[in-house]
């Protein structure tokens, strides 16, 4: 299978901060149709890594490759190409969607960037993607405030998918959703990945969701990798004390550990 993303020895510094790195020497790779979990607590650097992959923050050291092409600190044509291949979905759909245009228009904008397509084609495509993420055609003309959090997150996913990305970066996309809505979004993501074959980097602090969704895993602490590998290996036999602590802290249904 094709390697879609490869990150090698990535370090990131924040400007003006001379005390240590935000991210230090992180390496991992993701193949098509595969989902990699990037897990860690607040401040572990997981979102910063995603931003570096898509060129929103500068890498200080290391190399980012997408489909074999070096895209470290991209600019110009490389940046344009990169953002066709890689799309990012954020945690909070309320703040990542434009509240002043309809959600159909939001998806249309994403579709039209850098392309000349007729209005008729655009309309057809939008409906196709609305159906793909499980939203009725009538939602096209609604504004963000008329939709629920789960529906908005589907719009954000549709907006990413219309670019036909080979890699989706999903940053805590279900963290603000109710569990029943989260279940729908997770089912949808699995189904879409099966149909479309994109690679996914799933950023989360929820280790149960990561176990369900991902095949491989990178555990981060203070910007460094503490453990990485196959999900089933790490969950059944975590090598690092920190990973073990994280896994043990996850509430389990009927666990009764604090009774």
């Amino acid at each position, binding site marked *: 299978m094709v390697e879609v993303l490869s990150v090698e020895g990535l370090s990131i510094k924040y400007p003006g901060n001379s005390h240590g790195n935000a991210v230090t020497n992180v390496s991992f790779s993701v193949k098509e149709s595969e989902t990699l979990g990037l897990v860690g607590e607040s401040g572990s650097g997981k979102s910063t890594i995603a931003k570096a992959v898509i060129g929103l923050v500068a890498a200080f050291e290391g190399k980012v490759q997408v489909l074999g092409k070096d895209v470290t600190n991209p600019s110009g044509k490389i940046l344009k190409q990169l953002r066709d291949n890689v799309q990012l979905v954020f945690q909070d759909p309320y703040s990542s969607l434009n509240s002043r245009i309809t959600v159909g228009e939001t998806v249309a904008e994403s579709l039209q960037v850098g392309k000349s397509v007729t209005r008729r084609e655009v309309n057809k495509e939008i409906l196709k993607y609305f159906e793909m993420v499980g939203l009725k055609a009538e939602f096209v003309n609604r504004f963000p405030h008329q939709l629920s959090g789960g529906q908005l997150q589907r719009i954000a996913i549709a907006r990413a998918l219309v670019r036909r990305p080979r890699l989706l970066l999903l940053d805590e996309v279900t963290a603000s959703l109710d569990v029943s809505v989260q279940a729908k979004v997770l089912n949808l993501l699995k189904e879409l990945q099966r149909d479309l074959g994109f690679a996914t980097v799933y950023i989360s602090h929820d280790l149960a969701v990561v*176990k369900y969704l991902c095949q491989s895993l990178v555990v981060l602490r203070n910007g460094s990798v503490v453990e990485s590998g196959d999900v089933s290996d790490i969950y059944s036999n975590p090598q690092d004390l920190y990973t073990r602590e994280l896994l043990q802290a996850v509430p*389990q249904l009927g666990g*009764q550990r604090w009774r």
Partner: protein
Amino acid sequence: MKTVESPVLEVRNLHIGTAGGISLVRNIDFEVGRGEIVGIVGESGSGKSLLTLAVSQLLPRNVVARADVLKFLGTPLEPNAPSDLTGSLLGTDLAMVFQDPMASLNPARKIGSQMVEAIRFHKKIPKRLAFSKAEAALSQVQIQDSSRVMKQYPHELSGGMRQRVMIAMAILLEPQLIIADEPTTALDVRVQAQVMSLLRELNRELKSAILLISHDIALLSEVCDRILVMQQGELIETFVISDLFARSHEPYTEALIGAIPTFDSDPEKPLGVLDDED
């Protein structure tokens, strides 16, 4: 319904609605026994937070509540907010811990002075005594360096430390009931585990009952004696924790349980979903 002997909190036929007559919460019956930990699970908009606000007399002014019985430690409560909180149970026998400690703490004042104020609002004791009480409460929630934390501002503390401070403030006057509304939702998973075991220990030590609100039934099942399930303003089911797997539940409860990915979930199978309109 099984009744609890001499409950800390007794609620019969509680209704909450807007002043304009829109019903928000209907026909709620439950009680919390002494020293019991009761969980309320429900999704956004199920009314679980409104319910606790009615009990703690903190409902917004445009929302009204009525109940056949609303008793705290055997004394009838007026569910609608009194204009003057002096002499109210809130902060003494009844304490609240909210989700966001940053929104509950005063950012411009040191932890110590806020805690001393909380004590002296209810009890006219000398400042010095209140100060040492506050410091003791911080030690009780396992804050190692309590004398230093007393002199710090909220922004100098981590999220977990702030939530510990909130819990310390809640236990200052040894409440009979602590209502904790999503107290760990904003915290990292390891910190959540620490806060939960802390709540459990305080429950054992102080014999305070706890009413714990969460959208996470797995979390509740780790700590609660009983779980109440709310859906769209109604209490649809109550069960003791030993019945979690021992008997079948309301379809909505089953769906809530099935929707949560666990370490045992089969990645090949879709998660359970609720049939509702999208």
